[in-house]
């Protein structure tokens, strides 16, 4: 499998960054939330000061991922151009105009985001395993997301994974729904090319397309399930509303929308402040706007019924700081489901 490969020194550097993040989310957070208010105040300042710095170290520090990727650019680009044979497909849209809300802002401190270089997908893939720890085997959010999806459509049907990125969620869906036909759509060409590579390596029949979520490139009534994992917080409210309308259009009557995203259902003051601050410190330009929305009302206004929200701890039983992971489900009217 072609992937971003780090030198021993770079691995040591990234191990340190990961360990520092573990300290930041664990002992430092517990200091903040503890009874010693003087220590808590100091911890709060350090916590805020380090949040973006940890991301910067990961990407552009001495052992940062972007340096490793630049060094391996030729090999990584070759791997994207010479994917193995297999049933997975990719249809790019060379004339697609990327929206300004995606190109004109920074996300997550990754220089240039996921479209600036051909190898950007490999960087994002590596980084996604070290920021939120969402891919820890014991607590894999994608696997839990896919299992929830499987429950909703009884393991089959036509599924569209929007904002599919490099295919992590799409591949998890394919494994959880073995009899389903699964499509993925995303804006980023580098991510989609990596998604194709990973699907081919896994010999999965996934079908990827490049497109905007506000103008999904699929006919009406095409899908039984639309999934969006970590997507709607990357969209400004107007684009999110357009996406909801498009999801209603491409879903069949009684079809289901399943989102996993960050949405505060209930939080004490400190947690709420940290969630909101995260949107600024981690370059999540639309996250705070999402927090301010009445998401169920937005979904109902978009044409959905049976809206449900359910908090889902990133690491059940853990007292570490984590984002407010929330499952969102909604159905289109009519149909037997």
């Amino acid at each position, binding site marked *: 499998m072609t992937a971003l490969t780090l030198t021993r020194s770079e691995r040591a550097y990234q191990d340190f960054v990961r360990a*520092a993040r573990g*300290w930041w989310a664990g002992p430092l957070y517990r200091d903040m939330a503890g009874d010693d208010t003087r220590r808590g105040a100091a911890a709060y*300042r*350090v916590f805020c000061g380090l949040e973006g710095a*940890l991301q910067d170290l990961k990407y552009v520090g001495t052992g940062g991922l972007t340096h490793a990727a630049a060094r391996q650019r030729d090999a990584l680009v070759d791997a994207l151009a010479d994917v193995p044979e297999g049933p997975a497909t990719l249809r790019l849209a060379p004339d697609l105009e990327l929206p300004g809300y995606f190109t004109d802002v920074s996300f997550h401190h990754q220089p240039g985001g996921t479209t600036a270089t051909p190898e950007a997908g490999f960087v994002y893939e590596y980084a996604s395993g070290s920021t939120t720890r969402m891919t820890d085997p014991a607590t894999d959010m994608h696997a839990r997301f896919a299992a929830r999806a499987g429950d909703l459509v009884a393991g089959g049907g036509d599924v569209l994974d929007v904002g599919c990125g490099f295919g992590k969620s799409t591949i998890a869906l394919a494994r959880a729904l073995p009899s389903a036909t699964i499509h993925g759509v995303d804006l980023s060409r580098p991510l989609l090319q990596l998604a194709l590579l990973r699907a081919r390596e896994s010999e999965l029949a996934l079908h990827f397309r490049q497109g905007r979520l506000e103008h999904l490139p699929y006919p009406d009534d095409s899908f039984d399930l639309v999934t969006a994992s970590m997507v709607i917080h990357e969209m400004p409210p107007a684009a999110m509303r357009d996406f909801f309308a498009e999801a209603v259009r491409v879903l069949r009557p009684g079809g289901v929308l399943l989102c996993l995203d960050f949405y505060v259902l209930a939080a004490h003051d400190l947690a709420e402040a940290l969630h909101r601050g995260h949107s600024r410190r981690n370059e999540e330009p639309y996250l705070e706007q999402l927090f301010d929305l009445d998401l169920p009302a937005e979904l109902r206004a978009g044409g959905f019924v049976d809206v449900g929200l359910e908090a889902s701890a990133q690491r059940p039983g853990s007292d570490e700081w984590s984002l407010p992971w929330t499952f969102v489900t909604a159905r289109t009217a009519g149909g037997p489901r």
Partner: protein
Amino acid sequence: MTDPSTLTELTPDRLAEADTTLHPGTAAALLALTAEVHMLRTQLYDLRAQVVANGGDAGPLAGWPEPDAAALVRLVMDRLVTEVPR
């Protein structure tokens, strides 16, 4: 050429004690510096292993444990909280 054994003096304890009046704005710089230290200590550890594998004498580095990122983080960063001016 620098005597490699002098690098062992760059210990986490010495690093953490270097600044006891840290402003939180410098926390990021200390974090970056400590990451560099961990990387350099790992390089030195590998060099030591290479010397030993080739039948050489590791001198003052003999028995040096593999650098532990989590331990270094705790040692250095824990002090940030107690040393930040209020």
